[in-house]
């Protein structure tokens, strides 16, 4: 299987005045197409930094990152925006749905930035919402949806552009156990349909849902799940 994500010896150093902090210290990670990987780690381990680099929200200080064969480690913000739009679907802990828009419009948002015509947007967004079981609620605003439904709308938004990789950052962190189960089952189904998923979590039970687990600690990765 071809590797979608290929991170080689990535370092990330933050400098605040004279203080330097090495958040990532030589990370090497490869995620194959169709794989479901969970990244776990305690807070302060560099988990968020890795997630930002994986999501092309930030670039590494050192090392290379090939996403779908494209080197994204030295790209400008303008080009990164395009990569995020085409290749990555984000699922956030806080959902990050825009409160003033309906679920439908929220899901259309990435298509809008991709420049898709309105009719295509409507169809694709509708299909994505139906896929996550929100076909009846397309015209509800986030405030009118439950936490689980909001997270499913968020997954629909991540799916709608048909990205190379779905990046889920603590997707169950704000959900009750029923909704957590719902969302995890949905991710599982998506994986079964061949989606590549990277899940970031600090909960072991959630991490065990994935096919493969890696752990980050003090800015370095180890394979497997260490309790």
């Amino acid at each position, binding site marked *: 299987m071809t590797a979608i994500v290929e991170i080689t010896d990535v370092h990330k150093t933050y400098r605040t005045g004279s203080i330097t902090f090495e958040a990532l210290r030589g990370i090497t990670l490869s995620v194959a197409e169709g794989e479901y990987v969970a990244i776990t780690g305690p807070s302060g381990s560099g988990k*968020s930094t890795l997630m*930002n680099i994986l*999501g092309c*929200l*930030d670039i590494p200080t050192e090392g290379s990152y090939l996403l779908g064969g494209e080197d994204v480690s030295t790209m400008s*913000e*303008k080009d990164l*925006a*395009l990569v*995020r*739009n*085409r290749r990555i679907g*984000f699922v*956030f802990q*806080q959902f*990050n749905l*825009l409160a*003033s*828009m309906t679920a439908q419009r929220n899901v259309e*948002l*990435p298509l*809008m*930035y*991709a*420049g898709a015509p309105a009719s295509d947007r409507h169809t694709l967004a509708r299909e994505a919402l139906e896929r996550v079981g929100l076909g009846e609620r397309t015209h509800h605003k986030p405030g009118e949806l439950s936490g689980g439904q909001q997270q499913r709308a968020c997954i629909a*938004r991540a799916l709608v552009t048909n990205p190379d990789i779905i990046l889920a950052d603590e997707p169950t962190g704000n959900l009750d156990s029923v909704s957590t189960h719902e969302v995890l089952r949905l991710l599982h189904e998506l994986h079964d349909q061949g989606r590549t998923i990277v899940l970031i979590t600090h909960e072991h039970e959630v991490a065990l849902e994935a096919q493969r687990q890696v752990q980050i600690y003090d800015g370095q990765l180890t394979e497997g799940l260490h309790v």
Partner: protein
Amino acid sequence: MTFLETVRTAFSAVMSRKMRSALTMLGILIGIASVMLTVGLGQGAQESITSQINKLGSNLIIVNSGANSSLTVSNAGGAANNRTRFTTPLTLNDAAALADKDTCPDILHVAPVSTTTTTAYNGTSSGSTSVVGTTPDWADVTARTVTSGRFFTNVESSAGSLVAVIGQTTADTLFGSGTYVVGRTMTLSGQSFTVIGVLNTVGTTLSGNGDETIVIPAGTYAQRFATTTNMNTVSTILMEAKDKDSLSAAIQEATNTMYVMHNVTPAAPDFTVSSQQALVETVGSLATILTALLSGIAAISLLVGGIGVMNIMLVSVTERIREIGLRKALGARPRIIMLQFLVEASMLGLMGGALGVALGIVAGQILSKAISYPVIISFAATSLALAVSLVIGIVAGVYPAWRAAKLAPIDALRNE
């Protein structure tokens, strides 16, 4: 993302914070409305001045006796030393010379005018009016017409006939309104005059109420009303230049003729040639300056309004850091974010401006009724006001939009 979609996004952002947007727009609204009102009042003033010119007769030139410089000068000694220049009065001969087409080709009509104020009687009805002694050319020079009856002729003028053409107000006062007055008689200075015509209504002009007047032949005036021994003396000579372009040439010809007639030098004239148009233009330019000044003051409130827009946009960017971060994560390029906030700011400006224009128009209507003075709000002023409010919005939005565009997506998303 098309521009239309950006506009829609901005519109929904403006609408989702109604109270705040309304208050922000208020600053622009007040500024635009006050500028529009000020300019409207100024344009109204210009317009009414222009109509005053038309009432006076177009291209009117006036010759008065006495030089402008013959004013009282007090000396340092304290004793009043009135250095009054001896002035030769204007005469009918001067008028005849000015009417000479060879020396004054640009002067179309000449009307010597003598005026006084007296009381006219019709039985028990009486009215104080101005009495004008002149020639038939007067009607042409002052652009007056008769609505009933006729004007007197040159023959009547030189013969000193006891005929009069009267203004509408005078006619109403003496004979009652709605009465046909042509052929009726009235008493002026102990003499019975026959009314042969009624003048058109002009209302108040710069030279007084044009409807409260009695116009009689110059010869008659000289015999009955002249105060000096020389019956040829007139108080003013009115002239009409051929057209607007020949006005200054006509003034020059009149001045030269008067030098010769009165045998004086340009250094020590004993008469004054002026044109009403020049006076009116001076008044008009004063009105323009005043309008500009007041608009400038009103424009300061626009500046304050613009600062308000900028302030609220900065607050908005700070508040919506997460939204900006999300949009960036979903693939919005910095340019798109910049454009979104710019459009939002210019929308605040433009909407405030449009409401300001509406308020300006309504307030202009009410004001012009209240002070019975025209307030003219032109299409050009309206478009300019809208353009200005748009520009204010854009300028006020540049910095906040740039800040939003520059935000790093991770910083924006981290904010929790």
